[in-house]
């Protein structure tokens, strides 16, 4: 029988305590994975960015608009293959005032070329292009409002006055998880004729060739001397700039993740220390028989590792249903902008289990040292 086997058998002696310890470690692992996944998911949107897309916006703030002619200028710039533009409409469905969705006025000829991950049937696209009041919508938001193809719907805006009528031309299907399914897109021309500020676009998105950042700089240089300057960033950078505002929360979440690991260590350390204290007489017997101090260390650390491993695996097993399927699905549906993907990455999963094992070793270091330092006679004296 190997020492590891002996260590595992020892855990059965106080089964309740071992089980509680494993449970405690598993709870810590589930929480840890939840926190790490939140951060991972937040970054996932940026990771999913298409590398050759560049977003150009008003230099001061994205809330300010750019002149529509900038779109033509950008299309002429070297390195730009295709460019499209969008305006933020701030849409509201009058019957569901609290339901949030994205409403964009876009350039119909180019939008879906620049965003090929929004897939739309050819004939729906053709219909939409010819219908000035046409609207393409995401399936989730259409479901919420009960919209069907061919319906005429009315929208209002948080920013612009009046009621706006649209015809549902079709639905897009995203090929990537990071693409929002709560967006509606309609013609910029229709928008332009009704809105107060004329010939303005919100931001311009280009597909580029070559180094996207070089193209972006080229665009910005071009507008630098004009009235309205721009900032062009590749899509990943653009999405990550949103995260900067949450850096404090992310920092806090990281700190809290460390705290949960500390709790895990407390639980493990406590249990191991108790076990060692109880078994001092036996350790004496083992040493008398001829075992060496390092064997005792192996025994103590071995028990801890088994606890950590089992707790880590159990936690991992629980994490999938709770974090990924439970919390994750809810977040994905409702706060998709932030969390398009809420999956436990394989990296995080392995990390969690390794941490459980590593912390077990760390937590058992001191008790193991104490066990190894026992004088044989002292230990034996505590028998009976």
């Amino acid at each position, binding site marked *: 029988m190997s020492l590891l086997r002996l260590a595992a058998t020892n855990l059965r002696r106080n089964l309740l305590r071992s089980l*509680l310890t494993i449970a405690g470690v598993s709870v810590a692992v589930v929480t840890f994975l939840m926190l790490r996944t939140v951060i991972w998911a937040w970054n996932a949107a940026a990771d999913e960015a298409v590398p050759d897309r560049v977003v150009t916006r008003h230099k001061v*703030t994205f809330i300010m608009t750019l002149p529509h002619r900038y779109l033509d200028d950008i299309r002429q710039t070297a390195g730009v293959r295709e460019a499209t533009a969008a305006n933020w409409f701030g849409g509201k469905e009058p019957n569901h005032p609290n339901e949030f969705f994205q409403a964009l006025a876009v350039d119909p000829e180019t939008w879906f070329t620049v965003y090929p991950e929004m897939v739309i049937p050819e004939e729906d696209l053709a219909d939409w292009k010819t219908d000035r009041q046409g609207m393409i919508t995401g399936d989730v938001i259409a479901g919420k409002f009960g919209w069907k193809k061919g319906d005429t719907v009315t929208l209002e805006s948080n920013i612009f006055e009046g009621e706006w009528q649209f015809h549902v031309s079709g639905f897009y299907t995203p090929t990537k998880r990071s693409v929002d399914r709560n967006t509606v897109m309609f013609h910029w021309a229709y928008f332009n004729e009704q809105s107060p500020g004329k010939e303005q676009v919100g931001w311009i998105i280009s597909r580029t060739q070559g180094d996207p950042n070089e193209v972006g700089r080229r665009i910005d240089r071009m507008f630098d001397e004009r009235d309205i300057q721009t900032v062009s960033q590749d899509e990943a950078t653009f999405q990550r700039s949103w995260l900067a505002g949450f850096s404090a929360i992310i920092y806090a979440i990281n700190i809290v993740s460390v705290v949960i690991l500390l709790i895990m260590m407390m*639980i493990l350390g406590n249990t191991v220390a108790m076990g060692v204290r109880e078994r001092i007489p036996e350790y004496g017997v083992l040493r008398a028989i001829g075992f060496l101090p390092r064997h005792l260390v192996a025994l103590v650390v071995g028990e801890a590792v088994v606890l950590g491993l089992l707790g880590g695996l159990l936690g991992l097993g629980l994490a999938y249903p709770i974090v990924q399927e439970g919390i994750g699905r809810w977040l994905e549906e409702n706060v998709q902008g932030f969390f398009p993907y809420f999956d436990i990455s394989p990296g995080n999963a392995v990390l969690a289990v390794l941490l459980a094992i590593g912390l077990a070793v760390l937590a058992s270091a001191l008790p193991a040292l104490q066990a190894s330092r026992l004088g044989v006679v002292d230990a034996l004296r505590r028998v009976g």
Partner: protein
Amino acid sequence: MIPLSYNLRSIVVRRTTSAAAVIGIALVVFVLASTLMLSAGIRDTLSRNGGVDSVVVIRKGSDNELSSIIDQNKVGTILSAPGVARSDGDIPIGTGEIAMIVQLAPTGNPLGLTNVQMRGVDPTVLQKIRPRFRIVEGRMMAPGTDEAIVGRAIEGQFEHLAVGDTIEPKKNLPLKVVGTFEDGGSSLESELWADIDTTRAAFGRQGIVSSVRARLDDPSSFAAFEMTVESDKNLGLEAMTETEWSDKQSQFLSIFVTALGVIISFFFAIGAIIGAMITMYASIANRQQEIGTLRAIGFRRRHVLLSFILESVLLALTGGVLGCLAALGMSFVKFSILNFVTFSQMVFKFHATPSVFGVALVFTVGMGVLGGLLPAMRAARMSPVEAMRN
């Protein structure tokens, strides 16, 4: 009935295992209390914006000032509505303001541009409109110039925001920072203020303002004011007291932070409860002889049950007090969050209120009871005979 000193001393005697359970609980309470303090800090800061004798008028349907557009020539009409306080010369105390977002680099991170709220104001009426406003360093900007003042909360948090610096939120718009201001701890202290005409010109906001602010002569005048302002459907305006306005802004953020914190604390609490259970089980296992003796002497099962639950609660309370003390230390920390409604960074403090600690206390006792329940039941179930068997 079994003396409390028995439990207290038993906890102290088993120093290490008690410490492990106590620390576990302290950590949980720390996280919970800190979160509740942050949430209270958010509500507190944003509530200081409030006032039932000040009103905000924005375009109907706008969630925030940024998307609200009001024609400049309507400002006079709004300010002549009933209920607006007047100063000598019968001039209504009110003004239009322009709200903007600019991108500034945080100190030490020149590439990490973050949104900051900027406001175009009329320096000549500031003090009258906002009674709690004070310049704390430097001086007020001169009207019609390119001078600016900076809110105390963000001073130093962003590059070039100290008195004497020049900041260029937009190309060809250099602003000279001439002073720092306070506004009674409200969220306005996270803003950068410049002259309204300079702002209008620089950002192409000719002929419009974002919002209109005014003082009421008396809080009860609000009803009349609101009715007049909102009655004209063509104007499409909405009037609110500052208090209502700030509630709207803070609700979401406060709920978000609270929800996040409570969920995390819940999971942590399970871990801490398990830790406490392990400690209690071990303690009871080691005191079997004592338990048996107490039962032999005549103490009943419920005495034993109560005693050990109480012991677990005492353990928990020790941890809870430690956690709360640590959380109090967070009062000195500033927390900067992106406010989803205004899209700008706001700086909040951790605000210790009695209710935060009340909740933490209840939570602590709850953890103590849950952690001690099963072990105490085991102790109570021991028959005196088996307990005393050596």
